[in-house]
C-alpha cells in the first residue's frame, strides 16, 4: 500500500497554548485514519493543517510525496468541516452545481431553512458524489445525522475506502469510527498516539467500547 498522506512532527500553538505537539502519522491509499480526542484536543486544527488551511508551527504534511499546498492541485481531495460551514443563503441545488452536474436531490431551499441534520446530510452527499477524489477529510461527519443517514455515511465511507480513497475522519462517535477505520490517532493534550485497529480489537472486533478502552489506556485512565 503506497503512502498518500504523511504527517510528521506537527506542532501548533494558539495564543501561546500548545494544541498539537509532534503529531506524526501516515495513511496509505485505501486506508482510513480515525482521529479521536476530547473537545479542544486539536482534532479540527490537525485536519485543517492536513488540508493546508492552517500552517503548522513545526513539522510538515506531504500528499503523494509533495507539500500539501502544491499537491492539492494534482491530488483531488475533499474536505468537510460540518454543516455550519455551508453558506446559509445558498440553495442546495446551486451549491451542488458548484461541484458537479450530477442530478439534484429534489431539494432546493436555502441551507438556512433546512434542519441541522439535513444540512449535514446534503453537505456530505454533495461531496461524496464528486468523482475522482483520492483523499477524503471529514470533521465530525456523523454529527446531527439520523440513524439512516449515519448508516448511509458509514457505508459510503467504507465503499470509498475499499475503492482506494484515503480517509481521515474525526469523530466523538466511537462506534461509528470503529466500523470504518484501519488506524486511530488518539489526541491527548496535544500528543498523538497512533494505534492500529488490530491493537484496539477485542475478540477480533473493534467496537466503540474497545476504542474507548484503548483511548483510556493511552490517557492512563482506568475505567
Amino acid at each position, binding site marked *: 500500500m503506497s503512502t498518500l498522506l504523511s504527517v510528521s512532527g506537527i506542532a501548533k500553538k494558539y495564543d501561546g497554548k500548545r494544541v498539537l505537539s509532534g503529531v506524526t502519522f501516515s495513511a496509505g491509499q485505501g486506508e482510513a485514519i480515525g482521529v479521536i480526542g476530547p473537545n479542544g484536543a486539536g482534532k479540527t486544527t490537525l485536519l485543517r493543517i492536513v488540508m493546508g488551511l492552517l500552517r503548522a508551527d513545526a513539522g510538515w504534511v506531504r500528499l503523494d510525496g509533495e507539500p500539501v499546498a502544491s499537491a*492539492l492541485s494534482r491530488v483531488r481531495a475533499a474536505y468537510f468541516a460540518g454543516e455550519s460551514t455551508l453558506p446559509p443563503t445558498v440553495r442546495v441545488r446551486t451549491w451542488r452545481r458548484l461541484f458537479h452536474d450530477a442530478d439534484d436531490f429534489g431539494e432546493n431551499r436555502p441551507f438556512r431553512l433546512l434542519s441541522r441534520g439535513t444540512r449535514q446530510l446534503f453537505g456530505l452527499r454533495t461531496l461524496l458524489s464528486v468523482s475522482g477524489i483520492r483523499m477524503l477529510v471529514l470533521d465530525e461527519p456523523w454529527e446531527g445525522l439520523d440513524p439512516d443517514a449515519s448508516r448511509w455515511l458509514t457505508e459510503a465511507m467504507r465503499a470509498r475506502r475499499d475503492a482506494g480513497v484515503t480517509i481521515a475522519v474525526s469523530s466523538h462517535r466511537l462506534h461509528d469510527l470503529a466500523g470504518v477505520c484501519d488506524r486511530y490517532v488518539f489526541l491527548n493534550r496535544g500528543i498523538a498516539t497512533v494505534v492500529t485497529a488490530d491493537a484496539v480489537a477485542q475478540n477480533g472486533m473493534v467496537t466503540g467500547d474497545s476504542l474507548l478502552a484503548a483511548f483510556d489506556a493511552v490517557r492512563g485512565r482506568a475505567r
Partner: protein
Amino acid sequence: MIRVSCLRFLLVVSPPPTWMGVAFIASVLLGALTLWLNPRDVDSALGSVLLLQMFSASGGFAGPASRGYFDSILVTGRSRRRIAMGSLAASTLPGIVAWIVVLMCAAIVGRGAAAAAFHRQVALVLVSTIAWAGGLALPRMAAGGLWAFVLVAAALSRSGVGEYLAVVQSPPVDPSHAFASAAAFAVCPYLLLGDFAAAKSMVVMGADLLLASTVTWAGFRYIARREYSLVEPA
C-alpha cells in the same frame, strides 16, 4: 473539487446584498436621467456609483472565511492569489458594471470623452481597491462606512477641508505638492470627479495608481498568508 471559477464561487457563496444591486440600478437610472437633463453633469452621474462602490467593494473576506464558507475553494489547490483575484473581482464587479453603463449613457449624450477621462477612471480604481483591501478583515461594508465617516468628519471641519481642496486646485510644482495632491485624492477620490488641476498631472495619477497597486498587493498577501481557522457559530 470545485469546478467553477473562483469568481463564480465567491459570487454564489458571498454575494452582494440584494439591496446593493437595487441601489446600483437606481444610481444608474439616476445617472442616466441626470445626463439626459444636463449632459455636462457627468460627475454627478458618476458620483452616486462611486459612493455605492465604496460600500460594495468592501466585501469582507475574513468573516465568511472564518465560518468555513470558503473551505471548498481553498482546498482545491488553486493558488491563494487566484482566490484573492476572484475576491477582488466579485467585490468590485457590480460597481464596475454600473460605472460602465453610466459611461455608455454619457457617450450617448455626447460626453463620452469627459466621462472616460483618465482621472475619473483612477477615482474608480482607488475606491475599488482601497475599499476592497481595507475591508478584507472587517465585516461587509465596514471599510466603506469607516471611510465615509472620515470624509464626513473632514467635511464638517470646514477650515481643514478648505486647505485640503487648495492642494488639488493648482498643478503640482514640486514633489511634496504632488505627494500632497495624490494623498488628497486617495483620501477623497470624489475630488477626481471634478476638474481640478492636480488631477491632470500624470505624476499625481501615477502616485495614486501606485497606491492602488500597493493596497491590492497587500490584500492579496493577506488572503495568501491568512490562517483559515474556524470560528464556531454563536
